[in-house]
């Protein structure tokens, strides 16, 4: 079942690429089935540890395996990814090839979370880049080639050191293979640890993203297609937090310890910086890009605290923000479709003619602001509790972002939906209503009953706390 869920989107994507005429129907079936399968895997999950394990050698002599498995953390992320892809495919009226690329990317993303072999992980991590680049290149805006170039270079700059680290972590540690379990059993020690960790950290920081390696993100979003589909997929690709959690931190606890201070500082700074800069943004895409950066800063702050609650919070926030941030990009696409552009000062007073659209926007914006009762809060709050234990001052610095978040989010919302009505816009049609209802339901579920998912994350986080050397 796990393989089916993993590769169904890819197969469907390839078919769709060859026969784009099949379009939305095929994409819907494939992404719908993937979501249902993810849900089924979640329901049947035993509660802790890696389940659905499967491994078979790919390159026997090199110790490379096709090895996959899912624990609570990756299952939660699977669910988030497959939900977002399903909803995005449902919502967006875009060419079949565009959908095909999104489906291919889905397999890459699911693979990133499921891989239990480091080389396999690396392959998924890098391969996902390809459809993302093609999407930008084929369907992007005027300056897309520049954005594409930037995105590719940042990713590459991170990947090369990471490749070296991938090799180093196995050969220096003396592990017989690249399997996660083998690597964990042969921990790397000594003076190289910090450097090896740094190799991972560079790649993962680009994809978290953290300041100053976030610089590719604003233009990536600004230049991507106005429907928001590519942005949603890009949001799902921000897997840095998970990658630190699954690979870099457990494999190199010492290396993490050496860099923890710096990483906490970067995370806290990113959180505040992103929110602050977002306030000056003039269009939806950049606003959401910087807002998203800020959120990942908060998540990273929780993760790097090395505490259980902090890490549960980080993963929760990661998954929850994948859903609502993607939702916001798609929502911005809906606004843009009605008003002909994404500038924030383009229209005003939309709430009057499009009340349902404005309600959807308010829910999404409030989730982003971290309003308790919606999905943004539990993760943010747990990250805060953990981060405080690691560093009260950096927590104060980073979490000042919650004030800034209210400022940028409400200011943007107000200028588009409130104030004087400059033009009327049609309200949600049936297709969009389904999207809106699903989004709101997911935000309420995560926000009101977080236990459903925090219980999935806890065992995984507990394990890492032990690896990091105790229960601080």
């Amino acid at each position, binding site marked *: 079942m796990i393989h089916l869920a993993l590769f169904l989107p890819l197969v469907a994507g390839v078919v769709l690429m060859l026969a784009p005429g099949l379009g939305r129907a095929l994409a819907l079936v494939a992404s719908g089935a993937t979501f249902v399968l993810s849900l089924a895997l979640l329901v049947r999950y035993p509660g802790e540890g890696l389940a659905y394990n499967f491994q078979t050698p790919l390159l026997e002599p090199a110790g490379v395996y096709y090895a996959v498995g899912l624990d609570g953390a990756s299952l939660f992320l699977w669910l988030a990814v497959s939900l977002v892809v399903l909803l995005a495919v449902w919502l967006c009226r875009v060419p079949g090839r565009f959908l095909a690329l999104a489906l291919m990317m889905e397999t890459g993303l699911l693979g990133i979370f499921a891989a239990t072999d480091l080389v396999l992980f690396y392959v998924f991590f890098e391969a996902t880049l390809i459809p993302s680049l093609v999407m930008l290149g084929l369907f992007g805006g005027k300056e897309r080639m520049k954005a594409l*170039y*930037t995105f590719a*270079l*940042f990713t*590459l*700059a991170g990947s*090369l050191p990471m*490749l*070296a680290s991938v*090799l*180093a972590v196995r050969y*220096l540690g003396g592990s017989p293979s690249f399997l996660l379990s083998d690597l964990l059993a042969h921990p790397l020690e*000594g*003076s*190289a640890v910090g*450097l090896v960790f740094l190799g991972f950290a560079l790649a993962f920081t680009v994809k978290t993203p953290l300041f*100053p390696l976030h*610089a*590719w993100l*604003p233009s990536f979003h600004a230049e991507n297609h106005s429907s928001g589909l590519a942005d949603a997929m890009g949001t799902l690709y921000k897997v840095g937090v998970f990658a630190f959690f699954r690979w870099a931190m457990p494999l190199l606890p010492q290396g993490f310890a050496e860099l923890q201070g710096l990483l906490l500082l970067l995370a806290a700074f990113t959180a505040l*910086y992103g929110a*602050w*800069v977002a*306030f*000056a*943004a003039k269009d939806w895409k950049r606003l959401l890009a*910087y807002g998203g950066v800020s959120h990942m800063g908060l998540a990273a702050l929780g993760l790097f605290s090395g505490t259980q*609650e902090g890490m*549960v919070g980080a993963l929760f926030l990661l998954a929850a923000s994948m859903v609502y941030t993607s939702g916001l990009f798609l929502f911005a696409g809906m606004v843009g479709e009605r008003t002909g552009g994404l500038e924030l000062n383009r229209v005003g*007073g939309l*709430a009057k003619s499009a009340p349902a659209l404005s309600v959807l926007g308010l829910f999404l914006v*409030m989730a982003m602001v971290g*309003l*308790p*009762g919606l999905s943004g809060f539990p993760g943010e*709050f*747990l990250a*805060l*509790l953990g*981060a*405080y234990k690691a560093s*009260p001052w950096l*927590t*104060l610095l980073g*979490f*000042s972002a*919650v*004030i800034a978040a*209210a400022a940028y989010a*409400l200011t943007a919302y*107000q200028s588009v*939906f*409130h*104030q*004087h009505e400059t033009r009327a816009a049609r309200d949600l049609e049936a297709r969009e209503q389904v999207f809106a209802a699903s989004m709101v339901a997911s935000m309420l579920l995560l926000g009101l009953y*977080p*236990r459903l998912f*925090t*219980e999935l994350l*806890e065992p995984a986080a507990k394990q890492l706390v032990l690896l990091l050397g105790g229960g601080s």
Partner: protein
Amino acid sequence: MPESILLPLTITLPALGFALLGLFGKQLKEPLPGVIASGLVLGSFLLGVLMLLQGGARWQVENWLPGIPFSLLLDNLSGLMVMIVAGVGFLIHVYAIGYMHKDAGYSRFFAYFNLFIAMMLTLVLADSYPVMFIGWEGVGLASYLLIGFWYHDRVNADSARKAFIVNRIGDLGFLLGMAVLWAVFGSLSVSGLKQQIEASQALSSLLPLAGLLLFLGAIGKSAQVPLMVWLPDAMAGPTPVSALIHAATMVTAGVYLLARSGFIYVNTPDVSLLIALVGLATAVYGALSAFGQWDIKRIVAYSTVSQLGYMFLAAGVGAYGVAIFHVLTHAFFKALLFLSSGSVIHALGGEQDIRRMGGMKKHLPQTHIHGLVGALALGGLPLLSGFWSKDAILTASFEYGFPLYLGALAVALLTALYSMRWYVSVFLGQYRGQAHPHESPPVMLWPNHLLALGALLIGFVGLPQPFPNLIQPFLAKATGLEAPHQPNMGLEWTLIVVSAVVAAAGLYLGWQIFQRTTFPRWFIRFQHASLRSFYADELYNSLLVNPLKSMASLLFGADGGLLAGYQGVARMVGSLGASLARLETGYLRLYVAGLLLAAALMILLGVFR
């Protein structure tokens, strides 16, 4: 205390109303949305009464967040708050059925109103700080939606946003306060922490910090100095909103937080002193700012700021029960003042400037009585509700320290003066406008009758000795904190007489003075500064808001520059990438060679570091 499913139901009823009216409100004909909304709040009220009679209730879901239960508790303290929130809330809901008549957003209004009640009930019934925080921010959201209810007007939308953002500053304090408590005690359950702290021998040195941070939250929500700037602007919302949220209930949440957390503050005398000082400063500031306002609602709004300061003063000196007593009386007379203001505004077709009012005594006889009772209760006329609770605060601060008492007494005088200014300008003299005033319909008058009755009588639950005081022992059962020791009866009655004389003198003077039409120069100048609320907004804008905004633009520009800065590096890496791409030939041995090379490099770097 028995587990009771009625407890979450109390919250669910209005929440249901929010969902129903939000989804299907448009299909319902006026006044159905209003009736449904009011009925649900009444339901919550009755459930509250029932549980209070049963001696309280609790309910919880374990591990709502890891190690943090979703827990609710109805004891005497939260029970009384439920009575206020749902009781006064119900009356204001009914009033709004008339007030919002023919508004385009009729059902939307009641949806928000029910959302507010649901969140406020969550706030007061919470037995764990994060759950309280749900309500805390939830009422903030409802307040945001209702201040900006007529959002097409830029000013209203701006005021709503300002309220939310300023509150967020306090909320950050609340969040960090919870983080401190969690780090020190490993729990965020209110009653759990209470037990832990009461049982512990040596208290953590971080307790004052936790107390201070929670207090910061209270400052924001209750519009205390220096975060008071949002409340007067919040009057942009429809008047029932001002009455319910920005007078009777939500803004008292800060006081409730302090009373609920009394077990922390009794152990942190320095923080408590700070609370008392902030409270007194706010009381003075609010009272002085009330004198210069021309907007009928803004006068009452500043009086709310001032009265909230009184409540904080009481909490600061350790008289938590007294603070809550003042919350109770204030809920009645302040809701009454707002709703009678609303009736006047309604009668004058939306007019809010008191310079174009006057003479309403003749035109609106019933509303006149309501306004008079409200103003006298606020001004502290002996025997009315405001008198008893204010007197209890004065007595408590006298016990704590004479300077505080003196300050509080001065505020009492100011309060009496400006409440008469409000009354005289609106109701006495000749009508100075052009509208055709008409008395409100019964659906608006009846709530005010009941509120007026409360404003007259509710103070009798908290009489000084030798009379029986009902409310203090009732609340002490929940807080576990006895009121600070009683002064001897002679002293207490001396203080009562002093405060009665001050209030009566203030009321008489105010009644005399504000019927005049000319004022001395210094008063005009003072009034000018008071109208601008002593330039607090200007100060914030030039010192904080504008610099932060410019900094945002600056950073935004710099962030673009950051990318340009990478260009040079990028070109280098790019050429490296291109040459590497050429290596992708498919020959395994080349790959392996590359891998080995990289590994060798890592090892070398590791060894020679």
